């Protein structure tokens, strides 16, 4: 009861509700600390257990460097693709009425609910050696599965909803009045998009892109299926961590700490954006 009172109390809290508040906050921090912060710290602790020299050596391994480069390459292709897709989807969902709108909304959410491994399998079924397009691709000497295009496709598929989902509620709330105003003032479609629509959603867009990026760099399941695990060639950083883990415990954690650093950095930027421009996000 005290906990409920602490949540709903208005005005000056009594001593009991104050205690309940402190207990609740501490409990939340403890759970987060135990489940999230401690394991994250453990990764870094493990990575540095054999000293800085070993750590630097581990992350300078050519295979690991190649994996970092591949991960950044995949993210650098997949994220802009999803940026364009997300903007287009959100724009069409919020500014037009058309048949199949509900279907499009459901499709955008689909990657959230399908297991990434299944996403990978779907790609194999279509682009694989025995897949629907496999023969045609082989005849034209195009490698999709076990190569960069496959990795990009898998990543795009898995991170598809992030930008669109961030923009749709905001654009819905904003309505089309300002676009209509710009239209009556003589602006053309591009002018309306770049001068009116985009500036209004820029922070939400950045937020969506950062989330998308964090997910793209950390993606494991779908990429695992289509990668082929060729060291130094098709291993992204998460896959490299997985492979190292089977062989060299501490080196695996060194690579893992790199990956964690990349995503923590992304989330750090996200937090900063939220802190500076939180009022414009929703």
């Amino acid at each position, binding site marked *: 009861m005290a906990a409920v009172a602490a949540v709903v109390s208005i005005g000056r809290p009594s001593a009991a509700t104050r205690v309940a508040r402190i207990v609740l906050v501490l409990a939340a921090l403890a759970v987060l600390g135990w489940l999230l912060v401690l394991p994250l710290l453990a990764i870094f602790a493990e990575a540095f257990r054999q000293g800085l020299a070993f750590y630097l050596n581990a992350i300078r391994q050519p295979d690991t460097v190649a994996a970092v480069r591949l991960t950044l390459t995949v993210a650098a292709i997949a994220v802009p693709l999803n940026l364009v897709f997300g903007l287009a989807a959100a724009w069409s969902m919020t500014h037009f009425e058309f048949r199949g709108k509900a279907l499009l909304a459901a499709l955008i959410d689909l990657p959230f609910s399908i297991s990434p491994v299944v996403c990978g399998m779907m790609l194999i079924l279509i682009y694989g050696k025995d897949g629907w397009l496999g023969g045609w691709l082989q005849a034209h000497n195009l490698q999709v599965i076990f190569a960069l295009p496959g990795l990009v496709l898998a990543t795009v598929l898995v991170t598809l909803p992030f930008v669109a989902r961030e923009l749709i509620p905001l654009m819905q709330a904003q309505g089309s*009045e*300002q676009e*209509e*105003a*710009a*239209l*009556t*003032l*003589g*602006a*053309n479609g591009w*002018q309306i998009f770049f*001068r*009116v629509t985009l*500036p*209004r959603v820029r922070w939400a867009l950045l937020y969506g892109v950062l989330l998308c990026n964090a997910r793209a760099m950390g993606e494991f399941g779908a990429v695992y299926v289509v990668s082929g695990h060729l060291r130094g060639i098709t291993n992204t950083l998460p896959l490299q961590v997985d492979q190292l883990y089977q062989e060299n415990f501490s080196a695996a954690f060194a690579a893992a700490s790199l990956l964690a650093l990349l995503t923590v950095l992304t989330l750090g930027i996200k937090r900063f954006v939220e802190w500076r421009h939180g009022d414009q996000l929703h």
Partner: protein
Amino acid sequence: MGIEISRLRRQFGQFAALDDVSLSIGDGEFVAVLGPSGSGKTSLLRILAGLDQPDAGSVLRDGQDLLALDARRRGVGLVFQHYALFPHMTVAQNVAFGLRVRPWRQRPRASAIKASVENLLRKVELEGFAQRYPAQLSGGQRQRVALARALAIEPRLLLLDEPFGALDAQVRVNLRGWLREFHHSLGITTLFITHDQDEALEMADRVVLMNRGRIEQIGTPEQIYRQPATPFASRFIARGQALPGVVKDQQLHLFGQTWRIENFPVEAAHEITVHVRPEDIVLASLTADGLKAQLLSLRHVAGTVRASLRVGNMDEPIEAEWSERDWARHHASADDAVGIHFQALSVFATDREGRVLAHATVHPPHASFPVAVGPWRRVEA
């Protein structure tokens, strides 16, 4: 020449937002489109602005087809109810927007844009606010920025959507007079839509009254108030209240009294409506005089007295309005029985679709005046 709107029709599914709307607006005229929500006034505005297309009908400006031009090239300034200012631009950037987006051949020089923005801000009395953002302005100031922004493109028609709808009462009343003056100084043909009777009657040269997608009446504020053409106009503008009157054999029967009503065809009528305005209910000097009524409640509102009266066997009380001065002569208070007279009654005969077949204004002679004036004679029972 002005603007000639003829036979506009706009259908949303089963709902007719505009049903055969025709209207002509003279050059430089200040016209109010008045109606309750859902009456089609917003649809009309959006079609004129080019944000929507009618299913049928035409709009001509100086003989030229306006509907053929898209919203960008129409030269129509639109001020939205919620202003729709661009929040990420300063006041000056907002006002300059319409000039800056022009194709570069037609775009004025930066210095010319700056000068015209300054000029517009001076006109709307916001000189010192050029570098502010919309979020830093009050509602009335935002409204004027929106107006300046719409005027920047030198529109030949200015449309205002509920211009004061989002403002508080005091600001609203102040801005009314200001906008009217402003219109006179500019002379741009202006059409504004509102659901507020006072606003329309106080500001406009001419009022277009709409209901359910149709135009009920067009006229000056005085005409519409004095001679409402339909039961809706009477109710909405003149605050007409329905009375249980019956017309039979050229006679109007109301609360046991009977008056003659001539040239009033009732054979084809589906419904007869009798309306009285609050100010046309007067107190008899003697309670025994006139119609018996029960005073249910009294409210004193800035110089007028509003009363709820129960008359005859009517369930709904009717509202009367008197000036404080008149009221002071009577010694009545709430719950008293009083005698009342009707000074004027509006009688409408309508067909099944609500079209008015006949309309008469009736001045029943007071019981204390034995001589009737005009076509009205009291029929002695």
